[in-house]
């Protein structure tokens, strides 16, 4: 990480280079690419062409018939995905998407404009799949498929976080995420993957979660949380694991019970479920809500996702509740039912506390924790003391997939307004459907690509800086595990002095639990502000 120290700020230059984009020139240097996947993980997941290689190598050890594989792969996907075919055909290159991508804004590299990112693949499509491209070639933007193009794809399809912001601004709704997904699937056919995606995916396949936590370690981390909560609140919570016959199966991203600051959100969940006496269970087999397979291919996404329904069936629960996570919710909202449904063995979700019927989850039978908690608060089922969060001046960061994939915008805001006294929105160009990605989503949250991440995180950080300077905001609340993991270093670089927390951490702080002792600290163990310290 020494390359991107604060003293050496990077240049952001929006002047396009002299050389045409049609030349596939890529420079891999420390900080701008992710390490390739270890062959061990590729083998475990039965993926093609596992081998040792590095992007900086001249020879990427592609299979002999790599060109044939790619062209066949494109052909298949054109027939399987209308989105892919249509989006390759109808772009008019109006440029409306150009400055909507956080990677473009932070780098100025024109190939990070969504239109050009797609054009990298589109140019091959034109050359091999359209009559006009075959005849007129370069004039219509068609390019020959060479190994350099594969290298270029690797660079730029792993500089897209599939956040779909460009799709909001495109007059035709062209979604670069769809293009990137196809690009990554094609690269996988040649054995080109990154480790930061495949290691979690392989872990998840085996142990049920990305972090590779085996069931007994899961149990001990839960026990640890129980102790910690007892210390903070004086209350001993019960945390059922793999319990058959529970009403609800709760699934959250594994970072919640193993990483920081996710951990405090985890404590928040446990406290909340204890207070309302929820009849629920965790699962060790389905101990992951996130899905790194989704950043690799539809097939791997489906393979990992299958655990959720099959575990719900095995445990005999009525419905499923899901924790705070971004892309997890894209998968659950838009894909799970299609991948692995129908969930006809489950019941339409009804809150056992308020009786509210979650009609929006009628078919998939999985409810977002913010929908669930907002409903509890609205029905006065929780006693809340927002002053316990008075240390914080809070802003809320919509995670891309929650905003543009689900449309879950008001639920978390409603919760925050009820558990915090000071809440300030970032400028409207940077929230809700126009929210900026943390710059590290879709499997790009590695350490080795820190320059790319810092550049990608620039627009988000810039908006945080604005509210920090204007309102004194010192906490960014969010409901995405990747945000929680990757925003702290980004914010530290661009706008220091702003912490990151999950919404349910704030809920846990404010929640007045029956039988609790007088709280002196928040869930982080930091002392609460006393009356006279309040501003």
């Amino acid at each position: 990480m020494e390359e991107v120290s604060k003293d050496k700020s990077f240049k952001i230059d929006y002047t396009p280079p002299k050389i045409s984009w049609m030349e596939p020139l890529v420079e891999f240097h420390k900080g701008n690419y992710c390490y390739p996947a270890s062959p061990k993980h590729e083998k475990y997941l039965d993926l093609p062409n596992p081998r040792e290689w590095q992007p900086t190598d001249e020879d990427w050890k592609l299979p002999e018939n790599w060109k044939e594989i790619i062209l066949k792969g494109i052909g298949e996907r054109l027939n399987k995905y209308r989105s892919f075919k249509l989006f390759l055909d109808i772009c008019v290159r109006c440029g409306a998407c150009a400055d909507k991508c956080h990677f473009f804004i932070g780098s100025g590299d024109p190939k990070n404009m969504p239109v050009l990112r797609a054009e990298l693949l589109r140019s091959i499509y034109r050359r091999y799949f359209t009559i006009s491209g075959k005849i007129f070639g370069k004039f219509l933007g068609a390019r020959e498929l060479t190994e350099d193009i594969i290298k270029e794809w690797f660079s730029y399809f792993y500089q897209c976080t599939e956040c779909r912001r460009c799709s909001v601004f495109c007059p035709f709704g062209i979604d670069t995420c769809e293009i990137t997904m196809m690009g990554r699937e094609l690269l996988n056919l040649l054995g080109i993957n990154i480790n930061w995606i495949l290691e979690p995916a392989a872990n998840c396949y085996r142990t049920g979660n990305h972090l590779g936590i085996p069931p007994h370690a899961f149990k001990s981390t839960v026990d640890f949380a129980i102790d910690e909560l007892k210390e903070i609140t004086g209350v001993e919570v019960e945390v059922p694991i793999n319990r058959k016959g529970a009403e609800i199966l709760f699934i959250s991203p594994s970072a919640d019970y193993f990483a920081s600051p996710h951990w405090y959100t985890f404590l928040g969940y446990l406290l909340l479920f204890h207070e309302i006496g929820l009849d629920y269970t965790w699962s060790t087999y389905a101990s992951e809500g996130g899905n790194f397979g989704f950043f690799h291919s539809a097939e791997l996404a489906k393979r990992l996702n299958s655990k959720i329904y099959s575990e719900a069936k095995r445990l005999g629960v009525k419905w499923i509740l899901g924790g705070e996570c971004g892309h997890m919710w894209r998968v659950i909202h838009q894909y799970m039912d299609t991948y692995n449904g129908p969930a006809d063995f489950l019941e339409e979700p009804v809150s056992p506390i308020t009786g509210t019927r979650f009609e929006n989850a009628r078919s998939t039978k999985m409810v977002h924790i913010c929908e669930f908690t907002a409903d509890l608060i609205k029905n006065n089922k929780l006693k809340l003391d927002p002053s316990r969060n008075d240390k914080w001046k809070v802003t809320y960061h919509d995670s891309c997939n929650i905003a543009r994939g689900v449309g879950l915008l008001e639920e978390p805001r409603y919760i925050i307004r009820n558990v915090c006294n000071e809440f300030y929105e970032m400028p409207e160009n940077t929230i809700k459907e126009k929210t900026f990605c943390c710059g590290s989503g879709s499997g790009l949250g590695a350490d080795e690509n820190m320059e790319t991440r810092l550049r990608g995180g620039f627009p988000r950080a810039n908006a945080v800086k604005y509210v920090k300077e204007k309102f004194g905001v010192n906490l960014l609340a969010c409901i995405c595990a990747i945000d929680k993991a990757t925003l702290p270093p980004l914010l530290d670089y661009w706008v220091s002095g702003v912490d990151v927390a999950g919404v349910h951490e704030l809920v846990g702080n404010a929640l007045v639990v029956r039988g609790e002792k007088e709280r002196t600290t928040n869930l982080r163990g930091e002392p609460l502000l006393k009356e006279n310290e309040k501003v």
Partner: protein
Amino acid sequence: MGVWFSISSLILIVILIIVATEVLGLYFIFTVFIPYIGFFLFLLGFIYRVLKWAASPVPFHIPTISGQQKSLPWIKPDNIDSPFTTGGIIKKLALDILFFRTLLRNEKIELEASYKLLFKPSVLLWLGAMAFHWSFFYILIRHLRFFLEPVPSLIVFLQRLDSILQGLFPIIYISDIFILLSLVYLFIRRILYPQVKYISLFSDYFILLVIFGIACSGVLMRLIFKVDLIQVKQWFMSTIALKPALPKGVNIIFYIHLFFVSLLMAYFPFSKLMHMPGIFLSPTKNLKNTSRSKRHINPWNYPVKIHSYEEYEEEFRDSMKEVGLPLEKE
């Protein structure tokens, strides 16, 4: 490169037309053969492309959401930007397709010193696109008077409305002014904005020039090089009755106009102009945000290899037992 190449291509085409008609006298080819080819390529190509899109399924339910979902009864859902009814989806598509609402929310970023990002509204592209598409559409409708006998009164009315400025400038149509200005803008922005210039291809400039050629030749025929409209209409009516005849009372500008129109029609299905039907099929735009309440079927869904609970318990049984986690098989 694209700019100059497209301009020279256009000039070359004009010269070819002049030579072919005025010098070589290939009138039949230019007034019968090429227009028929253009029209049928357009018709068949258009249908073919749309059917090809329709043949690829939409495996996943992937609308891009831009508003509050319908969830809890007390949270106001946004039925246009996160549509949950058919009415909502129709409204959204109508706003997007008729009024380019998406472009209206366009903004441009500017970097102030020391990494300060500014967002500025940017509606020029929206204005240009609206002026271009609507005036093009208006002109098409106006042209129906050449194709229909008797001319419907609505078209007469639209034509009168279009020439409302005639008190000031004789025989100028408002739509003509709009289309020419917007084409100039759309062309110039491709040269002026470095990013847009960088992504622009020969074909992007060329198609603007072809349409510019159509509009210019049309205006010239109306203002300076007049043609006998009654004769043109007769020629057209016989052409669509598949009894082609050479037009009378026309001039070189007419041939240029006709050739460019034919070129546009022939070019349409092979180009980005297919965005016109494409937008209706765009799965990020035309699906409701009802992903969790209504099941979406993937026609090619296939079984995949999974790691079952049994395999999992097999691997971890001992340690699970040790910490007292319930097991399927003791």
